[in-house]
């Protein structure tokens, strides 16, 4: 029997069902979690951000950009008024400026983080994305954003704060996501040192960041094993690996630990 045509090329119901199956794909978060569990660097794992996460990130960029534009505009107007000795008038302008559209900006924001569902570790999201937005509505502003200047602008990084009781919940969620993104970024720094063969540097950095790493503590310990191996301290690496295995018997790290320690 030679290879046949595909049923999905037909125009019946069976073909429709098969075509729906062909386009099925895992979520980007699923890929990212798996890449992290395998110890693959997030930036180089070939994963892309699509779907709900991308949409959520875009929404955050839009709202954050609008707010940043407003804050910047308000600040400059306020400074101008103060220089002219019209403090009262400047305050009034600041109040009225609340509904104005924002100028173009470029922002760097934290990526949303997936929730934990199953038995395997769920770690997700590249540390950040960049985006350009021309204008956006003023509502739904987070209270804190980090600005990355465009090439033509000054290189100073500013932080703008506008307290708003309406957005406390959103701020809290962003803060949690930001915390995990920071942990990921910290561990990526350690991983880079290990890959560069700087075991001692990686160990020193791990010691320095240890108080800041909570969610990804297991990943940090695994990196410590790698760093110990890289620095030539195989005995300590083996001892730590045994300790990790004792704490988490048969866990997903076991494979990586065995792989690491199988090197000559």
């Amino acid at each position, binding site marked *: 029997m030679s290879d046949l045509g595909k049923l999905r090329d037909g125009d019946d*119901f069976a073909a429709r069902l098969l075509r*729906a199956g062909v386009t099925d*794909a895992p979520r980007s978060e699923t890929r990212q979690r798996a890449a992290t569990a395998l110890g693959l660097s997030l930036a180089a794992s070939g994963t892309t951000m699509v779907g709900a996460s991308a949409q959520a990130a875009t929404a955050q960029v839009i709202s954050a950009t609008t707010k940043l534009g407003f804050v910047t505009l308000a600040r400059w107007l306020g400074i101008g008024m103060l220089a002219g000795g019209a403090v009262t008038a400047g305050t009034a302008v600041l109040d009225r400026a609340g509904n104005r559209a924002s100028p173009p900006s470029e922002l760097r924001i934290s990526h949303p983080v997936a929730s934990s569902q199953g038995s395997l570790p769920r770690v997700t999201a590249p540390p950040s994305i960049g985006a350009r937005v021309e204008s956006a509505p003023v509502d739904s502003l987070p209270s804190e954003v980090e600005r990355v200047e465009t090439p033509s602008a000054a290189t100073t990084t500013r932080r703008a704060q506008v307290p708003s009781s309406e957005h406390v919940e959103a701020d809290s969620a962003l803060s949690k996501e930001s915390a995990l993104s920071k942990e990921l970024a910290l561990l990526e720094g350690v991983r880079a040192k290990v890959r560069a063969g700087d075991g001692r540097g990686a160990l020193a950095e791990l010691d320095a960041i240890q108080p800041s790493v909570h969610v990804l503590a297991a990943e940090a310990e695994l990196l410590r094993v790698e760093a110990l191996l890289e620095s030539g301290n195989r005995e300590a690496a083996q001892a730590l690996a045994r300790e990790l295995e004792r704490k988490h018997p048969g866990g997903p790290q076991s494979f990586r630990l065995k792989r690491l320690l199988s090197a*000559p």
Partner: protein
Amino acid sequence: MLAMPENESNTPLRDEARTRRLFDAHFDFVWRFVRRLGVAEGFADDLAQQIFLTVSGRLHEIEPAREKAFLAGTALRVVANHRRTLRRRPEVGEDALNGEPADPRANPEELVEQRRERALLDRALDTLPAELRGPFVLYELEDASLSEIAELLGIPRGTVASRLRRARQQFQEAARELAKGSR
């Protein structure tokens, strides 16, 4: 206790590069294969991850030309184990972990339709016995040739052809029944 082999030739860095290449090339295939073998999306995420963890721990056993076959074989075993676990623990319902479709380009109506069609696809596939389902999914959804399927599943090409023929008949019958019910 961890086994600590001392005389392996692979270095961690080389292994990581190979794991990364395998992951980038085949993760979507493995996840989709697991899904179409009848595993709900919530479980498929974990099983696909588990398959790659297993394979990454056995890289030195895998010939470069047989990586996809190794992944497919591992997927079949992992899914079979998963089914046995579910039979032992029926309180863990598959439906509870079924998630939304992943296509970010579809509008809400298309998403609903896509999800409905995929659910019907899975019901039609559920009518196939395991020995027919694997070859059918690989041929019809993953575009593997008969020879590749024979290689992937470790069975003769003629057996693949006869299983595929039976699978196509059964699938089309199931789809016709489902079409009547969905009108």
